[in-house]
């Protein structure tokens, strides 16, 4: 089953899973967007411009970081190869674009994030599945009965942990009663996701290590969680004062 799945969606076809997740996520987000005071058109445009900015920004960021190589062969910028891409740079450009669009349309930040939460939650599932298909974000070697054979060893199925956690988080935020306080829906999703990453990253076999052995992914998740808690308090205070 796992082999069939990995053969079917082996790179570069694993990106189909991300596209599929984005489409399902947007469809679900659209169903509830008006609850949060964001119109379907605004939600679609916000996502469309954000995704477009992600793709273009990711390519440009990679090019800027490797400028000497692209100055020698500038046509490489237009190459169809998806490896010419910097996901973090793409994400930064997507966020900036979404903020600019939101400001021009007079959208409220926290309401927009609440409306986009199902999109983010489904996208997280897609990311887990694409990791599974590509064999990336793989786990440590294990003797556990549920280990999977990957990269010549039996390993923790961290991609399955990640997908299962994302599914659970999606279920929780989807079934959550509508919270009248704006931002709480999104921050709940963000806190659960950061906590899941903090836990699951411990089983990763591909972690970048910092400070003599600490896993960078866990440290980032911990810092994110602390910031989310501060934001949660800030939102509760703002909403009560409002």
């Amino acid at each position: 089953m796992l082999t069939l799945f990995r053969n079917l969606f082996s790179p570069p076809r694993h990106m189909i899973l991300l596209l599929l997740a984005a489409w399902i996520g947007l469809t679900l987000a659209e169903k509830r967007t008006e609850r949060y005071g964001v119109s379907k058109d605004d939600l679609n445009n916000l996502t469309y411009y954000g995704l477009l900015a992600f793709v273009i920004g990711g390519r440009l960021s990679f090019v800027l970081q490797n400028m000497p190589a692209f100055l020698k062969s500038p046509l490489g910028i237009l190459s169809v190869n998806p490896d010419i891409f910097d996901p973090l740079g793409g994400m930064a450009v997507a966020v900036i674009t979404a903020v600019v669009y939101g400001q021009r349309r007079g959208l409220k930040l926290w309401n927009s994030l609440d409306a986009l939460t199902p999109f983010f939650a489904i996208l997280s599932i897609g990311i887990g599945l694409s990791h599974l298909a590509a064999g990336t974000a793989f786990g440590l070697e294990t003797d556990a009965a549920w280990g999977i054979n990957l990269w010549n060893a039996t390993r923790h199925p961290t991609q399955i942990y990640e997908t299962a956690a994302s599914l659970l988080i999606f279920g929780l935020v989807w079934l959550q009663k509508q919270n009248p306080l704006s931002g709480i829906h999104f921050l709940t999703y963000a806190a659960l996701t950061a906590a899941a990453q903090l836990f699951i990253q411990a089983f990763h076999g591909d972690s970048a290590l910092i400070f003599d052995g600490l896993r960078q992914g866990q440290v980032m998740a911990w810092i994110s969680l602390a910031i989310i808690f501060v934001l949660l308090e800030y939102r509760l205070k703002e909403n009560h004062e409002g």
Partner: protein
Amino acid sequence: MYTRKAMSKIQRISLYLLILIAGAAWIAASADTSNATAATAAPQVGFAAPDFTLKTPDGEEYTLSELKGSAVLVNLWATWCPPCRAEMPAIEKMYQEYKDQGLVVLAVDMTYQDNPADVAPFIQEYGLTFPILLDETGAVGGMYQLRSLPSSYFIDRFGIIQEVVIGGPMSEALLRTRIEQILE
């Protein structure tokens, strides 16, 4: 009737602190000081490149593990594969540019799913000067868990895979960024 009461601010902050302390303890408990992947051979970033010995059409033998100290690009290809053909001129150009800095290119033809008679004319047609190796049994295709052609593995001077590019064609610029990374 039972009604759920919202948590007070003090209760919430205590909960946040508890979660953060437990999180910090979990990070410390799961710290990793080993470099387990580098000792294992697998066709993935961070692992030692699976070793192989293959011959060129002229019978010259190459063993990957004997090339430690050089940066190696292993490119798996076949003559019938259009993106493989499309990226060969760029690979040749990069080989000429970087071979004096220690770059070795091993282009492994998947002979077991190719027509062996097409290989020599292919080398002639593209004027390839780097070693073309023949995988007649599929052993290397199997070791590298080949799923798509072309597949390229950028291996550093210590024999560790630093980048994998599945599919193609790779542009000169992409090749240059990856090659400079493994030559560092």
